[in-house]
């Protein structure tokens, strides 16, 4: 028997408290009134003799209470032979690593062979289970005692593209060990990648009735490996110009070398470059893709290497060449500066994929906004009723509108489409300092994240709008709303309470103008500029709020449809479980090509150091090995007696309460008698 927290035994000193209460405290000299001291003589009795323990039972209970409390905290345990250790009945867990790195040098097949050989010693009373692991656990069998079934499961293990993490297997073993009374033997068959170890080694610990047996399939040496680390390519291309593509190639455990790096588009190698790589270094390669074909293009960056893991010598990217979207820019006939600055900002940035159609208010009567990505109303006065109605229907149906308010719009009491009251117009003299600046800007909003808070922009004229239910994204120093957003039906509207020219403000002259125009345009048009490359085991959203229930067509890298019809209509997300190109045809008709690649941490083939492997094998809390009577190794595990002590503590505390209250009554009665006397 031992204690897991022996320092709590110091609490036993508190036993002195009941001793004090019962032995010393009880000796209270309560004066006894008496007629006369005439016949008394002073006598002092020895301190030991007269200090008798009172209420022995209560005293004993109190001492027991404190002792049990201290012992419970000290967490006593006894060593008991492990469940699987004495009777030979074991739970054998075969855990095979099928992560991406196991593609190297036929490691997976070696692991399967080793697993099969371990199963040859599988006893009739044993129970076994076969699982594979990368970042997640896949159970290939339930716990069974059939060696043949386990062997079949081992043979059926397929290569995966995920990233291995040994923490997952430790967590699984923990839950397994708690649910089975047997001793658990965890056989791990893996290439023992150092990058798969958790940051804290303690995360690999398992209960006492489990122990690791590690089977490494790697040579134990740090194998050199070159790989394409990342590719930076735009998701969509709108113009017939060369597209810049950046790739990073790297090596681990490598010597200095010169490698051929190629760009391949739709199976055709377009360009090859020689790249010099430093030892264990990385290099950036720049390619310019000539005019790509319309539609979805499958691109790939390859590095020519002769290492043991060819799977990471390429990285996919997708490129969607399409026509740019159109923006309907509506302005008053005599105010063209706003359109000028807006168009200039839109064209000066990266390939935004949007062009503007400038129209005056008079020209809008017959226009349908449906064919535009979004509509800009730049300080317009009265717009034709038919166009306003069409615009409202457009926004209700999911379209977007950007409204800039200037002196013309301020004549009207309400903001068109946005339906908010204009309460006031403010003018400031340019010669003086009475201009406003932006005070609070929601930098987390996708339309404003790169505007740098409109720093230094002077707003001379602003139109004060009652925000009502609208969300205020930016305010001026006098708390006047500068940018407001409101969701209308399925669409949304942004209101800029100044203009895009440099009359009401000097925004077009500042660096924040172009990002504001670009980001607001992307936001309102719904163009997703994020790259379409994902790591294996990432998830993509299949349904948006608008197209719930509509089927999404998914095609995996093998050209098969991994989702059933029901799943295609109901699944919210899709797990990209394999490397390659995944095609998605969404409910709104949008066609996407997703490039999926293995996590590049798998490319580092540095194995776990030998010493660490030995430490890992010896993990298992409090596990002890002793020699049995017949010389055989007998495993012992500590069994905590904490619960028993707590139970006894409860019983004793209950009894103490009962007896204590009884004695209290006796004391009270005695006191009452004394007082009466």
């Amino acid at each position, binding site marked *: 028997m031992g204690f897991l927290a022996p320092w709590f035994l110091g609490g036993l000193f508190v036993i002195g408290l009941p001793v004090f209460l019962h032995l010393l405290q009880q*000796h209270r*000299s*309560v*004066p*006894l*009134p*008496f*007629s*006369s*001291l*005439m*016949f*008394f*003589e*002073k*006598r*002092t*009795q020895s301190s030991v003799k*007269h200090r008798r323990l009172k209420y022995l039972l209560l005293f004993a209970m109190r001492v027991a209470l404190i002792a049990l409390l201290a012992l419970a905290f000290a967490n006593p345990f006894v060593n008991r032979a492990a469940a699987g250790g004495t009777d030979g009945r074991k739970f054998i867990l075969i855990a095979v690593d099928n992560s991406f790195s196991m593609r190297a040098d036929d490691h997976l097949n070696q692991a399967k062979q080793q697993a099969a050989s371990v199963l040859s010693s599988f006893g009739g009373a044993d129970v076994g289970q076969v699982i594979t692991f990368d970042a997640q656990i896949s159970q290939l069998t339930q716990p069974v005692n059939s060696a043949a079934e386990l062997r079949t499961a081992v043979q059926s293990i397929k290569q995966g593209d995920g990233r291995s993490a040994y923490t997952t297997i430790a967590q699984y073993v923990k839950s397994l060990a708690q649910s089975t009374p047997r001793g658990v033997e965890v056989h791990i068959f893996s290439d023992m990648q150092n990058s798969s170890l958790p940051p804290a080694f303690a995360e690999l610990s398992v209960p006492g009735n489990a122990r690791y047996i590690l089977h490494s399939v790697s040579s134990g040496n740090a194998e050199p490996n070159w790989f394409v680390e990342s590719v930076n390519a735009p998701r969509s291309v709108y113009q017939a110009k060369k597209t810049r593509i950046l790739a990073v190639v790297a090596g681990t455990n490598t010597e200095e070398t010169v490698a051929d790096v190629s760009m391949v588009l739709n199976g055709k190698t377009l360009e090859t470059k020689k790249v010099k790589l430093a030892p264990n270094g990385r290099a950036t390669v720049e390619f310019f893709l000539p005019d790509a074909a319309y539609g979805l293009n499958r691109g790939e960056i390859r590095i020519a290497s002769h290492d043991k893991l060819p799977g990471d010598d390429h990285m996919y990217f997708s490129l969607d060449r399409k026509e740019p979207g159109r923006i309907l820019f509506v302005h008053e006939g005599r105010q063209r500066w706003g359109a000028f600055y807006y168009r200039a900002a839109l064209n000066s940035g990266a390939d935004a994929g949007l062009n503007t159609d400038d129209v005056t208010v008079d020209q809008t009567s017959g226009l349908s906004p449906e064919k535009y990505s979004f509509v800009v109303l730049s300080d317009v006065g009265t717009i034709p009723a038919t166009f306003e109605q069409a615009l409202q229907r457009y926004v209700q149906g999911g379209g977007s509108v950007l409204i800039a308010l200037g002196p013309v719009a301020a004549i009207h009491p309400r903001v068109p489409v946005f339906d908010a009251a204009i309460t006031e117009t403010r003018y400031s003299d340019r010669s003086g300092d009475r201009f406003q600046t932006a005070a609070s800007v929601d930098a987390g909003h996708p339309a404003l994240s790169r505007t740098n808070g409109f720093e230094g922009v002077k707003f001379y004229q602003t139109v004060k709008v009652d925000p009502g239910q609208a969300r205020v994204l930016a305010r001026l120093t006098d708390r006047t709303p500068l940018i407001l957003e409101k969701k209308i039906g399925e669409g949304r509207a942004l209101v800029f309470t100044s203009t895009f020219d440099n009359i009401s403000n000097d925004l077009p002259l500042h660096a924040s103008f172009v990002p504001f125009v670009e980001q607001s345009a992307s936001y309102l048009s719904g163009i997703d500029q994020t790259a379409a490359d994902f790591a294996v085991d990432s998830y993509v959203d299949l349904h948006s709020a608008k197209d719930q229930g509509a089927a999404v067509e998914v095609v995996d890298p093998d050209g098969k449809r991994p989702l059933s019809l029901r799943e295609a209509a109901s699944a919210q997300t899709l797990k990209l479980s394999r490397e390659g190109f995944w095609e998605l045809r969404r409910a709104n008709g949008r066609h996407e090509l997703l490039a999926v690649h293995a996590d590049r941490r798998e490319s580092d083939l540095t194995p776990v150091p030998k010493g660490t492997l030995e430490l890992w094998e010896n993990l298992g809390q409090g596990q002890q090995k002793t020699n049995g009577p017949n010389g055989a190794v007998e495993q012992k595990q500590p069994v905590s007696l904490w619960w028993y002590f707590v139970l006894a503590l409860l019983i004793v505390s209950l009894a103490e309460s009962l007896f204590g209250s009884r004695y209290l009554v006796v004391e009270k009665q005695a006191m009452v008698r004394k007082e009466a*006397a």
Partner: protein
Amino acid sequence: MLQRFLDPSVLGSISGLELVARTVVDGFIAGMHRSPDFGFSQEFAEYRAYSEGDDLRHVDWNVYARTERAYLKRYRGETNTQITILLDVSASMKYGSQSVNKMDYARFLAAAICYMSNQQRDAAGIIVFDDEVKNYVQPSTRQGQLARLLHAIEKAEPGRRTNFEKPLLHCLQFLHRRGIIVLISDFYEDPEKVIKAVEPLRFHGNEVILFHILDPQELRPKLNDPVLVLDMETDDAMEVTPDYVRHEYGSKIDAHVSAMSDRAQRAGLDYYLLNTGRPLDDALREYLTIRQGRR
């Protein structure tokens, strides 16, 4: 049956001293013949030769006509004695280990004596004292005397320390006529001193009776633990062990009682120890029986 009610605790629960006294004395009378000392007052007692200074109203003129000698006719009533009760109300009298403390017991005793005297047309009076005279009711046979006495007894509350000399000296000033003096006290004083203080009363021809009231706990205290004993009169404290109480205290109090008794006997005083744990009428009866036998 009546005896059951005469238990001190029962007496203590009876409100009104007159009722208590009547209960005690009626029970006592019912069980006893008339006492020669407390006879009926209208009964003829004796003739005595006239001497100078005697009241001529008491001369039996019939005898004078027949014998030409003047004789005074005396009735028992005229031989009635004057009873003065000296009630000690010192702080120590407050002690009691039972429902009735020594003070209450002394009150009952005093009330019983007063009631009995009243029944016998004896002139009873009372002096209440601790270290000085607290109250004095002159002995008398007037109407309402019993009520006055009982009121004085009722009002008597434990006071300070006992000092026999001063009140008894005072008592001597009041007592012009010989009679019976009943001293009720717990006598926590040196017997020598007590007797010395009381003796002068006897010299005047009074008959002195000492009723020594003690609680059972005072006679045989029971202690389980060492205890700090607090003197009720002086407030002095002393740690006392059960061992001492068990082995030495008893002999000391016995010696004290014995000394009191001896010294009283030698001084011609009547001494009687009253244990408050004992029924009052029972104790009185016993005392009177002894007293009768002594005469």
